[in-house]
């Protein structure tokens, strides 16, 4: 097929396109007055984030992505007094998935369609507002979302729906540079927040429903120059012809048919999918990053993509400096259910099956299990009890539609988990959304058309619900579980105050006792609370902040609010 546009430079050399603000046509709407002295985000600050009870510097709290906030001013004894401190209403009434970032009392939030706001975190007052001038692009599968910015030095970084990485001046919101990540008319787009580490900005890509070849890329934080690319799909994607998944269940593959297809058509790597659309975790001692890779393309039709489809549906670790492969673990080989690996991994010490403490890694799966790894070699130590009903796994999709649980949204969808390292619990939010899986083979349609190879259909007569589950990661047992009215999507924050915060599509934002699951506080936000919460402290007062904008994927009520809560006097 011919390439649309003139992307030959990118395709050939993988060279990032660096365009300056003047030519890129990006718009900034309003620059504000400087607030106090805005602090440069140093490497040391980012490294110490896990113990920083003032700022919230990373999408998932810290480089290990624990989403465990160390401040305890808000705790189990006083959370019942939590009330809104302020509400900021953005210009965009659409799905909100942003993780608010707070640096020395300045909050950065993003909206659908790539707006960025800088706000006074104490008062909610706007400091500046930036709006990306978006080019035509293949719309991502699940909403025009944005999960937030990364901060580094004096800059703020965002990925855009038209597959760009944008760098803004943190004080003024003016664009400093933008780099084209990949061709948006081939199905590449960004909804994830980037990760800033050691002078590099790391970002993956969307597009597993459009026949991309996925990657994680590293860009120079100062110039936007591309430093390295790790392709999540190697040229030899075939693997070992695994017949069972990570939990030991037979996936009913027809290996003979797949081998015949491979012989006839060759390796399918060029359009095999494998997006990475949540942040990688960083281990500085090992000098490695850890991320999980999404589904193969086309989602439901395995006939066009013989082999294990490496490294889709896998945990992968690469070298931070070079992007070179270190290890991987595939949860599901040759997935035809879209039960891929998306919730971002968490790094924490875990007990292995001998009772020894090892450097571990946790991942909440769409299958409904929490997977526990030894991150030195990516090996699996254990997987938890199923957090949601599983029925008829692994029934193959059929032309008429076959029912299987979980449905294609999971389990744990992309929602980040949190941990309490003292209680040694991890907290996941789950969906129970029964679906049928229908397969119908069609050829690659070119990057601007959805390519599932069939359809997932929600079964309207069947009840849907969700849950919040606490899992002991040293044993795999469920400690507690609370059912929710609707399937859950958004994210979890755990705190040293003994609390777990998470929101629901019906507008309820709740605080749970992290040891027992008791609901200690709730607030009706008026739109779906489907974004991960953050926390911060300004002038001695701790706040909890969350976006309430609803969700496209589950069609929860849309809104445009950022709400900050603090304790009543």
């Amino acid at each position, binding site marked *: 097929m011919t390439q649309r546009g003139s992307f030959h430079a990118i395709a050939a050399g993988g060279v990032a396109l660096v365009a300056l603000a003047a030519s890129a046509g990006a718009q900034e709407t309003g620059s504000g007055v400087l607030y106090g002295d805005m602090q440069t985000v140093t490497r040391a600050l980012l490294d110490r984030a896990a113990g920083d009870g003032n700022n919230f510097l990373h999408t998932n709290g810290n480089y290990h992505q624990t989403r465990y906030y160390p401040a305890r001013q808000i705790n189990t004894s006083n959370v019942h007094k939590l009330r809104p401190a302020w509400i900021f209403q953005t210009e965009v009434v659409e799905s909100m998935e942003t993780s608010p970032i707070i640096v020395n009392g300045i909050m950065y939030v993003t909206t659908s369609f790539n707006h960025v706001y800088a706000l006074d975190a104490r008062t909610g007052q706007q400091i500046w507002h930036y709006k990306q001038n978006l080019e035509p692009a293949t719309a991502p599968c699940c909403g025009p979302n944005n999960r937030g910015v990364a901060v580094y030095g004096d800059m703020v970084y965002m990925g855009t729906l038209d597959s760009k990485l944008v760098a803004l001046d943190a004080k003024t919101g003016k664009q400093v540079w933008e780099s084209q990540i990949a061709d948006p008319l081939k199905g590449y787009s960004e909804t994830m927040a980037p990760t800033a580490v050691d002078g590099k900005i790391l970002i993956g890509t969307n597009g597993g429903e459009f026949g991309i070849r996925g990657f994680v890329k590293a860009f120079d934080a100062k110039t936007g120059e591309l430093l390295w690319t790790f392709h999540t799909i190697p040229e030899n994607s075939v693997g070992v012809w695994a017949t069972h998944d990570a939990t030991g269940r037979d996936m009913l593959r027809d290996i003979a048919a797949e081998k015949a297809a491979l012989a006839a058509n060759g390796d399918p790597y060029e359009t095999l999918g494998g997006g990475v659309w949540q942040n990688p975790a960083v281990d500085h001692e090992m000098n490695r990053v850890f991320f999980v890779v999404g589904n193969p393309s086309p989602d439901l039709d395995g006939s066009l993509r013989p082999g294990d489809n490496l490294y889709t549906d896998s945990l992968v670790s690469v070298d931070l400096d070079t992007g070179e492969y270190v290890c991987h673990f595939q949860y599901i080989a040759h997935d035809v259910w879209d039960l891929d690996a998306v919730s971002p991994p968490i790094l924490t010490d875990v007990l292995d099956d001998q009772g020894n403490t090892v450097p571990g890694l946790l991942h909440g799966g769409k299958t409904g299990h929490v997977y526990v790894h030894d991150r030195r070699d990516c090996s699996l130590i254990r997987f938890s009890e199923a957090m949601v009903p599983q029925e008829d796994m692994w029934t193959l999709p059929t032309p008429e539609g076959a029912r299987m649980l979980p449905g294609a949204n999971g389990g744990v969808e992309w929602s980040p988990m949190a941990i309490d390292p003292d209680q040694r619990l991890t907290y996941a939010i789950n969906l129970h959304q029964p679906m049928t899986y229908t397969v*119908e083979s069609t050829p690659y349609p070119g990057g601007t058309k*959805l390519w599932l190879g*069939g359809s997932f259909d929600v079964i309207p007569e069947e009840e849907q619900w969700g849950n919040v589950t606490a899992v002991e990661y040293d044993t795999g047992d469920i400690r507690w579980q609370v059912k929710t009215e609707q399937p859950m999507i958004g994210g979890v924050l755990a705190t040293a105050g003994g609390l777990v915060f998470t929101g629901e599509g019906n507008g309820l934002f709740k605080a749970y006792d992290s040891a027992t699951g008791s609901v200690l506080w709730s607030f009706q936000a008026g739109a779906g609370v489907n974004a991960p919460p953050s926390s911060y402290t300004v002038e001695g007062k701790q706040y909890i902040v969350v976006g309430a904008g609803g969700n*496209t994927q589950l069609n929860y009520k849309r809104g445009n609010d950022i709400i900050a809560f603090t304790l009543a006097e």
Partner: protein
Amino acid sequence: MSKTGILATALGAVAFSYTVASAEEDIGELIPLCTSCHGEDGRPIAPDYPIIVGQHFLYLYIQLRDYQSGLRANPIMQANVADLSDDQLKALAQHFSKQAWPSTSFPSSDEDHALGQRMGTGGQCPQCHLGGYEGQNNVPRLAGQQPRYLERTMLEYKNKVRMNAPDKATLMRGYDDAVIRGMANHLAGM
């Protein structure tokens, strides 16, 4: 390398030829051909012709391109675009996308809305078409579109007459014709 140097290299290496800024073709003579069916005021002359004013640029461009290649079959449209350049297709798409969607008031019943919501939930239509069915980029706006065009389109997907969106066929097969009609009315009445 200085910033100017980077810029020069960048612009020399790639022209963003898929963006609207470069599509400045003279299409003035072509417009009346379009509006003769799609309506001079944006309201088409027949109930099963689509409203195109205010539709998304990328969707319109892709449809014109698909007519030209034959991927989307329609003898009238194919003839209309047969000799046009890619830039002319972009310019036409740009021209119509920049206008306002006409205000419409298509009748729809409670039963239509119930059927439409049921189908929309099952098919997860808002995931691409968004909550108000306003669409985005390559995904068309459906809200307030002509109901007989919507119904015809969904049936053409179901019956594999329209072939330029492969997953639509599978999706539509799950719904009987009465539900599709209700969905069409539901969307038109939004």
